[in-house]
């Protein structure tokens, strides 16, 4: 589904990714773990079209994503739930969800939009109760739910999530991971980037370890969870 080949990416003059190759198959949950500054966010932003300075290939269902605008990439079915949630705090919860459907927001798709919104509300009932509330006043966990809900509104086939558990209470972290599993169950392919390595690896089928811009290790998550180096560096053993 998604094929990243020998990707080099640059932030200003700094090379943030070196020769990164990853592969995501339809229906997978792929996990990428790595420390702060390893290049995880850069990788997702490059795939989303937010970082233009890169070389190498990003292929989605056989087509190259190079040179496409972020909007065109969203339209193809790839969406990013960005790090730190990045919701539109000055707008209501409902408006945030509507903007998630921005690319197909018109009269013709009215029913589909309502249907998708009901799906979001079914997964996050609290968002329905708070739909008129200014989204900047939601709690961190609710904002993360909104960010995921907003991404769901764009009808993604591949959802990329950048540290969805960051800064959340343990109970909320569990809730978010449950939702990711549910989305996956409903047929969305997931590319998950996490610092919470144990939980993320437990969920995925295949994992990559990113260190200072390079993939240093990859394999089935079961194997990674047992790997001595991974245990030592990321699982705190």
């Amino acid at each position: 589904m998604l094929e990243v080949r020998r990707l080099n990416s640059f932030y200003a003059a700094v090379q943030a990714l070196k020769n990164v190759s990853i592969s995501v198959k339809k229906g997978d949950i792929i996990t990428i773990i790595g420390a702060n500054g390893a290049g995880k966010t850069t990788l997702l932003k490059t795939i989303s079209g937010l970082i233009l300075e890169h070389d190498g290939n990003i292929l989605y269902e056989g087509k190259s994503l190079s040179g496409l605008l972020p909007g065109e990439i969203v339209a193809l079915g790839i969406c990013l739930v960005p790090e730190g949630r990045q919701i539109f705090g000055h707008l209501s919860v409902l408006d945030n969800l509507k903007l998630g459907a921005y690319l197909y927001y018109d009269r013709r798709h009215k029913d589909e939009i309502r249907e998708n919104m009901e799906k979001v509300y079914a997964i996050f009932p609290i968002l329905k109760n708070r739909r008129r509330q200014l989204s900047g006043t939601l709690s961190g966990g609710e904002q993360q739910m909104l960010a995921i809900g907003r991404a769901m509104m764009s009808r993604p086939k591949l959802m990329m999530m950048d540290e969805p558990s960051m800064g959340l209470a343990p109970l909320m972290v569990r809730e978010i991971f449950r939702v990711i599993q549910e989305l996956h169950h409903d047929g969305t392919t997931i590319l998950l980037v996490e610092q919470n390595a144990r939980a993320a690896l437990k969920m995925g089928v295949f994992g990559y370890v990113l260190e200072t811009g390079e993939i240093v290790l990859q394999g089935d998550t079961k194997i990674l969870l047992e790997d001595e180096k991974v245990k030592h560096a990321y699982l705190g053993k």
Partner: protein
Amino acid sequence: MSLFSEILQFVFTGLTIGSIYSMVGLGFNIIYNATTIINLAQGEFVMFGGLIMVFLTVVLKFPLFVGFPLTVIVVMAIGAVFERFAIHPLRNASLLTLIIVTIAASILFRGIAMFIWGKDPYSLPPFTPGSPVMIGGAVIMLQTFWVLGTTLAIVVLTTLFFGKTIVGKAMSACSFNPMAASLMGIHVRKMILISFALSAGLGAVAGIVITPMSLMDYDRGPMLAVKGFCAAVLGGLGVGYGVVLGGFIVGLLESLTAGLIHSGFKDAVALVILLFILCFKPSGIFGSEEVSKIKKF
């Protein structure tokens, strides 16, 4: 003339200039809503509106209903070109830099206008000929109704645009968080371009309707921008109806001060209001403190 009719006269004058300040303030609002830039060349759009309308209808003798839309289109094009050549290339500049760029643009626009039209003020015939109306002893020019009506229409349209349409909300999302906006598929650069064009068009409308009453010259922009800015801050930047009420308050106070105290204090009124509001309620009368805490400024 009794005191009552005199005051009524000042009130009508105040509402009329207040309308213009409202429209300038709404112009600020549109660009602010899309970019958080305060476009200090907003007054120059008003000036261009008036002077280009004079050129089209008085010099080229176009009828009103052709000259009006044509002027708006030309000024919108000026706004778009301004964005493309002055704002767009500086995509990574700080907000303050961009605001300073708009000051430079306003000086440049004034220079161009002086070069083309000279320093003399120009006038337009009123839209509807006829003698003024008397209400309660106050004399009201017919053009006043045009100004008030246009303001009302623009307020309704911009409020609907930002409050009800997805494009308006998308535009406000661009200023709040451009990165997240582009992840929604919103074309941020295009939105910014549209906001400048819309705002310029709005300024042009203000310039066109006010020129028959108060003349127009190349140097009118900065004072209008200052007053419009006061209106916007007073009402609450980003809040459509707040900006309009702010405009009316500034206009009324200004006109009453000029009439009842001394006309020399007229221009000071707006600045005093600005100082007070920034000291005591920076989010404006109608701006929600909640939103202003979330916003960058």
